[in-house]
């Protein structure tokens, strides 16, 4: 503030040589532009200590006042000299701030080169070098303070430096402007954030370049009426620039408040994946993904517990969320969000509890899912073992017994022909034994696993179940569609167990319906026995393993099995 008042005082002292030029509007414009930039810089420093951008901004704001210092009114030799050397320091500093916005870091080598040239052009070619050969008193300014960097006064050289400085100045101003325009064009998602900063900065640089061009004819930067009009416009551009920088700082605070509001909402209604939606909305990145790390396996899962890999695509990056030193989640988002580190930090800090909460839920869901898979695997393994056993019995033991019975028969015929009645009788009885063994083996194999189920499907298998059932088994509307082996086996077992259960409860009949509705196989069984007392645990395990549900009533049973 003092800086500004001192500058204004200097300007007032010599209206003819100053931009503020003694008019009220000029004074207000000068102070408003310089102070707003300084304020934005200080605010930025306050919010993001350690981010160089705040310093650059503050410096730019202060440098804005310097041209007024090269006036006699400044009163001190040091101030006067600084004014002489630094009177065009503001454009490169403002350009720097705009290029480095908002991280404080320059993004490319090109940026660095352009800025180095700008600083050199402004501080050396238009600053130190002409100042070193400029003797203000020698040129008629008798009340000017002493020029501390003066070596030898050389008016010719002074003009040469200034002329070249202007030419070069137009060059670096255009270069800086072009870099800013290029950034603005590429800004995409972050446009809302970057454009309010880049547009005024570019306008400011363009105005300065125009003024340089105007000054070429004169060979020196000065303050005729055109310059003053340009200068007023530059003030306006800088004020807009300052607002562009400051607004997001307020917005971060608002974002934090809105996240906090969301967090309260989330705690009240448990929507899976709600945190992701909230973050995507608040950060303005609709493609944002939130993945959670499982503390037991170190794998990543989504909010529903499905395993996945945080794979950043083109132009995307992964930001880990830590608890202590451990990653609990990761955000896959647009790279450009990194340009708003403050926003990202604030939002994640506010969402922290919600994220941790959802991470725990996701982990539990993932474990449940695995448990279900392992149950399904156990059931499937059991079934395939039964199926193999059934095949082995049919293709191995039973075939051998059948072959043996044929041989016994041949022997029996031979014994009869050779009239050995005792041997014949023995062989007949052995043959009958073999026949009985074959029948029993067949029953056993069928009990282990009904081959017809795998080969012909659920409907024929249930028909056979009805053929053998000890009580009437009415099959009504049994779908003829085929389903996967685990689904058909589960449905078959449900009916088979229900029939056995009904028999034990002295039912006189069992009625069965099997239909397919909305991707689920519905098995409904009803009987007229006495009320059921024990639950069918084994069955509910089997159906549950397939992600289905079993509803057991006193005389009824209803299984719903997902069948794709």
């Amino acid at each position: 503030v003092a800086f500004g008042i001192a500058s204004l005082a200097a300007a007032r002292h010599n209206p003819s040589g100053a931009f503020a030029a003694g008019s009220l509007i000029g004074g207000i414009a000068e102070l408003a532009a310089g102070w707003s930039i300084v304020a934005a810089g200080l605010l930025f420093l306050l919010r993001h200590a350690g981010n160089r951008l705040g310093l650059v901004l503050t410096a730019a704001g202060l440098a804005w006042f310097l041209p007024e210092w090269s006036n006699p009114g400044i009163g001190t030799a040091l101030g006067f000299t600084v004014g002489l050397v630094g009177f065009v320091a503001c454009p490169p500093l403002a350009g720097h701030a705009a290029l480095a916005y908002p991280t404080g870091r320059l993004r490319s080598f090109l940026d660095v080169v352009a800025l180095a040239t700008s600083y050199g052009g402004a501080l050396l070619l238009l600053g130190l070098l002409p100042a070193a050969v400029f003797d203000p008193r020698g040129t008629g300014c008798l009340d000017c303070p002493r020029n501390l960097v003066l070596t030898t006064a050389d008016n010719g050289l002074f003009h040469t430096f200034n002329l070249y400085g202007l030419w070069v100045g137009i060059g670096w101003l255009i270069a800086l402007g072009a870099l800013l325009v290029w950034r603005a064009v590429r800004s995409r998602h972050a446009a809302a954030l970057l454009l309010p900063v880049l547009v005024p900065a570019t306008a400011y640089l363009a105005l300065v370049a125009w003024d340089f061009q105007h000054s070429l004819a004169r060979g020196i930067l000065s303050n005729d009426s055109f310059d003053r009009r340009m200068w007023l416009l530059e003030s306006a551009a800088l004020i807009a620039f300052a607002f562009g920088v400051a607004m997001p700082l307020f917005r971060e605070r608002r974002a934090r408040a809105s996240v906090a509001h969301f967090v309260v909402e989330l705690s009240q209604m448990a929507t899976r994946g709600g945190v992701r939606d909230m973050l995507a909305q608040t950060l303005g990145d609709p493609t944002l993904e939130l993945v959670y790390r499982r503390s037991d396996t170190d794998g990543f899962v989504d909010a529903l517990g499905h395993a996945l890999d945080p794979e950043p695509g083109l132009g995307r990056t992964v930001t880990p969320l830590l608890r202590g030193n451990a990653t609990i989640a990761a955000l896959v988002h647009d790279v450009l969000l990194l340009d708003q580190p403050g926003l990202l930090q604030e939002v994640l800090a506010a969402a922290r509890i919600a994220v941790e909460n959802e991470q725990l839920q996701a982990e539990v869901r993932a474990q449940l899912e695995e448990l279900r898979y392992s149950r399904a695997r156990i059931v499937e393994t059991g079934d395939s073992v039964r199926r193999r056993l059934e095949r082995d019995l049919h293709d191995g033991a039973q075939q051998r017994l059948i072959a043996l019975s044929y041989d016994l028969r041949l022997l029996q015929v031979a014994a009869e022909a050779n009239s050995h009645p005792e041997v014949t009788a023995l062989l007949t009885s052995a043959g009958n034994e073999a026949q009985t063994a074959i029948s029993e083996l067949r029953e056993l194999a069928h009990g282990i696993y009904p081959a017809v189920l795998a080969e012909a499907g659920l409907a024929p298998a249930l028909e056979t179940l009805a053929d053998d059932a000890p009580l009437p088994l009415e099959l009504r509307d049994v779908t003829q569609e085929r389903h996967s082996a685990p689904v058909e086996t589960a449905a078959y077992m449900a009916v088979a167990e229900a029939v056995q259960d009904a028999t034990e409860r002295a039912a006189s009949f069992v009625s069965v319906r099997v239909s397919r509705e909305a991707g689920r196989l519905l098995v409904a069984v009803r009987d007229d026995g006495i009320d059921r007392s024990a639950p069918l645990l084994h069955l509910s395990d089997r159906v549950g393993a397939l992600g289905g549900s079993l509803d057991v009533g006193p005389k009824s049973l209803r299984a719903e099995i997902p069948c794709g």
Partner: protein
Amino acid sequence: MRVVVADDVMLTREGIVRLLRDSGVDVVAEAENADGLLRHVRLARPDAAIVDIRMPPTRTDEGLVAAQQIRSEQPNVGVLVLSQYVEPSYAMRLIEEHPERVGYLLKERVFDVAILIDALRRIADGETVIDPTIVSRLVGRRRREDRLGELTAREREVLHLLAEGLSNKAIAARLFVTERTVEAHVKQIFLKLRLDTNPESHRRVLAVLAYLRAGA
């Protein structure tokens, strides 16, 4: 009588072949899979083919598929499917398309070679053969409203033989009655079971089996 035998298990195949040869049946070829069977049937043009239901590669129902192919390609060649399953659905699948000159017997039935020879002869005569065990199971099936209860003991006997695929003449011979009597019984049975009283003769086995299966 000339037959081709197909069974992938050598032990049982040879057992069948020896039993058949012992009884004077001319086994003209042996096959261990469905392709071999079809080739031999085309070349040898036997009276009948004896086919195991389970053969490579999947060991499920290759025999049934081959049997149906033989029946549609060579109407004069009968097919007897030997199975280890008391499975009416397989038997019905076999006779659905070509109900004549086919049979479904349990493998161990071959032990009584007379039954095997009889089955082959009936198949050659154009009849259908269904294993009595399967028929017993279907007839014995529990039903809530059992119309079979309206049948007399004699009618039940006739129904059983009908389901096994015997012709009226064969039933008459089996029960020592005249063919006219059997005709009268069959008419009564079809009336009581509310079945179409006049199906094509070779379709009546299917009608009876379907009725028994439906169980209503």
